[in-house]
């Protein structure tokens, strides 16, 4: 399997703080990779760098072999990288279903195709995905009226209906009802298995990420601390120290 996403020595500094210090990371096509580390270790900054929200100081980011570090967020989305946020970002003044419809394959259809009603298949998929995340009953509610956890689920559903090549999830289970977490993880694994959806996931929930990811990268203070299979990283002394030390 080839590396779909390849970061090489990515560095980003804000003022005097080195948020990302020569991070090298690779995500193989069709795999699930976890990104862990104490708060402030630079994980979300790395996501911002990958998705083009912030320019990087040095290093390279390649997606499917193509250098993307100079691209703007819109272009990166259209290449197939979609991302969710720690604080869920949804369209507050329209309904949950509308949120889904406006996200459905929007990056692949030509602009002119927007001037049609949503296709029945898209409507079906929207309701199906909403049902999966448990929001079917709320589909006509304004997204802004949903609870934090419901908004996160909606955001995830929106990302899935967009059918990306690669999904970057920023703490997908934070704020989610624990009862739902297992089925959520199942769905992510299914999407990965059946559609070859590649995932890069930031998580603080250790059991979740250990069970989900095939590879884990651990960041601390902007630097890459360790990486490898979950069991290997879990017992790495430096990782334990970074978490315990930071607490």
């Amino acid at each position: 399997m080839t590396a779909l996403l390849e970061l090489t020595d990515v560095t980003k500094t804000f003022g005097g703080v080195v948020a990302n210090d020569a991070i090298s990371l690779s995500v193989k096509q069709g795999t699930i990779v976890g990104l862990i580390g104490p708060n402030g270790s630079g994980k979300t900054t790395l996501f911002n760098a990958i998705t083009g929200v912030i320019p990087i100081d040095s290093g390279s980011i390649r997606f499917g072999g193509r250098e993307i570090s100079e691209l703007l967020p819109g272009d990166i989305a259209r290449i197939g990288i979609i991302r969710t946020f720690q604080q869920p970002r949804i369209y507050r003044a329209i309904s949950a279903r509308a949120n889904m419809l406006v996200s459905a394959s929007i990056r692949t259809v030509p602009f002119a195709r927007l001037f049609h009603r949503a296709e029945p298949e898209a409507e079906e998929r929207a309701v199906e995905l909403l049902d999966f995340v448990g929001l079917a009953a709320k589909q006509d509610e304004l997204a802004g009226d949903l609870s934090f956890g419901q908004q996160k689920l909606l955001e995830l559903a929106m990302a899935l209906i967009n059918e990306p090549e690669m999904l970057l999830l920023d703490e997908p289970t934070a704020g989610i009802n624990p009862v739902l977490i297992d089925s959520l993880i199942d769905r992510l694994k299914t999407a990965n298995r059946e559609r070859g959806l590649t995932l890069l996931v930031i998580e603080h929930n250790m059991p979740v990420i250990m069970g989900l990811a095939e590879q884990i990268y651990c960041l601390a203070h902007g630097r890459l601390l360790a990486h490898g299979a979950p069991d290997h990283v879990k017992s790495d002394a430096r990782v334990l120290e970074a978490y315990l030390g930071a607490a």
Partner: protein
Amino acid sequence: MIGNLQILIDAPALSLQLLIDGILVGAVFALAAYGLALVWGVTNVINVAQGEFVMLGGFITVFCADQGLPPLIAVPIAATALYVLGWVLFQLVIVHLVGRDMFNSVLATFGIAIVMQQLMAHVFGGADRIVESGLGSWFFLDGLIGIAKVKVVVFAACIALGMTLALFLARSRAGQAIRATAQEPRAASVLGIETRRVYALTFALNAAICGAAGALAAMAYTIHAYGGLAYTIRSFMIVVVAGLGNLAGVVWAALGLGVAENFAGFILGAQYQIAFVFGLLVAVLVFRNWRLKRKRLTLR
């Protein structure tokens, strides 16, 4: 237009005249812009009626002069009257807009501007007014350059007012309360600063500043009931160029605008001077946005 450019090239003294006049009027712009930045920075409200406050101050001077009073006395009168007006407007209208979407404050203050424009036109008429100071001018270079003494007085007064304001904000307790609230309203409120009073004070203070600036301006420049919007746009432009909180920048940008406007008025013709100001605003905003875009940010 080309002809006018040619005149400028042939007579450099004329350029110097335009430059000096531009700097002199720029001080008035700077004061109005400072006030706008103050309100914007503290309450996050954009006061589109800023220019109307200035015009009203100017009309107070006109009124005083018409009554036979010395024009300078109008300055404290205007400042006080507008302070009161600002306070009242805040309590009636602005207080509801703080913390809400900025569109509401732009629209509401635009409404206030329209009301003020119409009232001023009713009371003072729609014609241009100016107060003759009778002070005469200094002449240099064999009479090629004339500097109206009253313009220098206005310039000096505006600078003095601006510095007083800056000192007030930096040293006085009220000033510090204002600055604290601007930076972190919740923390300020926790520390016992009544944010609502600070907001009211700031808005009223801004109105007073505009009133004083207008009162001074009327002695050297024309005032008219519909001239407010141009002042508002100038203030906005200066603040955008200088950035909130950058007092020195406001001064430089204001003086620069005064000069640019003077030159444009000469080269393009007086009737296009206002169009130039508005057009320059658009250019400044577009340019600013483009610069930010390269760093992948947007003007917020």
